[in-house]
């Protein structure tokens, strides 16, 4: 008799307001435990690709920016390869981690990532996905981390053909996933609720 015996995933709980103590202790002045905060630096001088800055805030249902949120991003390198052991398509840029972690500023609520613009990566069926960056957001009051993606406004053609953006039924919401560009700086504001609610994904 075959039985399906799976464990259940451990249920999530909020990161709470003091996530910094464990994840970015140096950011709040708890120095001397870890040399540097994990994910604070994604690149070095040798990293290939176009340097970009991503800024933004995370807004609650009243339009107030969260002051206690932490964000993580995960992305391909400039050639579209992930610095991950499960990347089977080639060798990613060893000078680029692809993973970043930043808390928002405790007063302004702004986050900031220094990274490179990712290349395109394939969808499971082989079609290209437009260049994008995966975001994961936790904070007090968020019971399970929120997943979303940031796309690039100058990639109009690739965005129009992107199989993930193509799944957004209400086309007016696609713009919530596309950053605003000013030179090499992109602004990606995230709205948890309201008319401009960002598209969040069940991945």
């Amino acid at each position, binding site marked *: 008799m075959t039985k399906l015996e799976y464990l259940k995933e451990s249920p999530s709980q909020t990161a709470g307001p003091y996530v910094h103590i464990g994840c970015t202790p140096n950011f709040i002045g708890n120095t001397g435990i870890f040399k540097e905060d994990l994910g604070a630096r994604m690149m070095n001088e040798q990293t290939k690709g176009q340097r970009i800055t991503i800024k933004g805030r995370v807004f609650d249902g009243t339009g107030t920016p969260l002051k206690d949120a932490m964000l993580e991003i995960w992305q391909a390198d400039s050639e579209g390869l992930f610095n991950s052991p499960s990347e089977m398509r080639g060798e990613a840029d060893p000078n680029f981690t692809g993973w970043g972690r930043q808390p928002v500023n405790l007063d302004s609520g702004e986050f900031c990532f220094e990274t490179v613009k990712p290349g395109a990566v394939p969808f499971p069926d082989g079609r290209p996905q437009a260049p994008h960056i995966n975001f994961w957001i936790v904070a007090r009051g968020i*019971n399970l981390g929120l997943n979303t993606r940031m796309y690039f406004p100058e990639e109009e053609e690739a965005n129009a053909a992107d199989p993930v953006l193509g799944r957004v039924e209400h086309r007016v919401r696609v713009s919530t996933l596309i950053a605003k560009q000013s030179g090499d700086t992109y602004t990606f504001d995230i709205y948890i609720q309201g008319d401009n609610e960002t598209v969040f*994904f069940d991945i």
Partner: protein
Amino acid sequence: MSKPTTNAGPFFPRDRNWHPPALSPNYKTSVLRSPQKALLSLGNTISETTGPVFGHNMLGELDHDLVQNYAKPGESAQGERIIVHGHVLDEEAKPVPNALVEVWQANAGGRYRHKKDDYLAPLDPNFGGCGRVITDENGYYAFRTVRPGPYPWPNGVNDWRPSHIHFSLFGSGFAQRLITQMYFEGDPHIPLCPIVRTINDPAAIEMLVAKLDMNHCVPMDARAYRFDIVLRGRRSTMFENRMEGN
């Protein structure tokens, strides 16, 4: 780091009825911080199945010892000394090696070392409240700390958090990312806590309750609590990522 060593398929779909719902009105902060529109179901692409790797060599000598890692030489943190240990498994009960486990907690009096915490219990000059470990090849982890105190928080007029340790877990893929909390067996605050009660199923809550583990106590030194953690499982790639006819 870039050698193809694992053949990593998509993760099992997340059971979102098992996790706490985003909107849990008794946890008041969730009211304005919960998406109101439906999530867009994506499944996994390579952007979700891949993830960074954290090497054991990035760890400091005392990263796993909260009793010592903020203490002055010759001193140590105040409170009940405990060892917290367990396995990180996936939903198929397979160990998850090289998982990054980060923990943070209040001190024995229930006070956090954080500029935004002004609870009147005093800071312990020898306790930072932060540690991290990476699971070994069997998915096993262990750290030493002091049992955190319960603390009041502004939600209801008299809400108290049970003693708890915050856990952040990074397995092998970005979609496996998880933050949760560990509670202590027998704590009467567990069933009273609005944050615990964001989880609907008592069996799910039970997964977050560490058990007193007399076998792993260090006699005359520290008691042990066992806390196993389950991350999402993943499918084999055997039938994935191929176009029909290719």
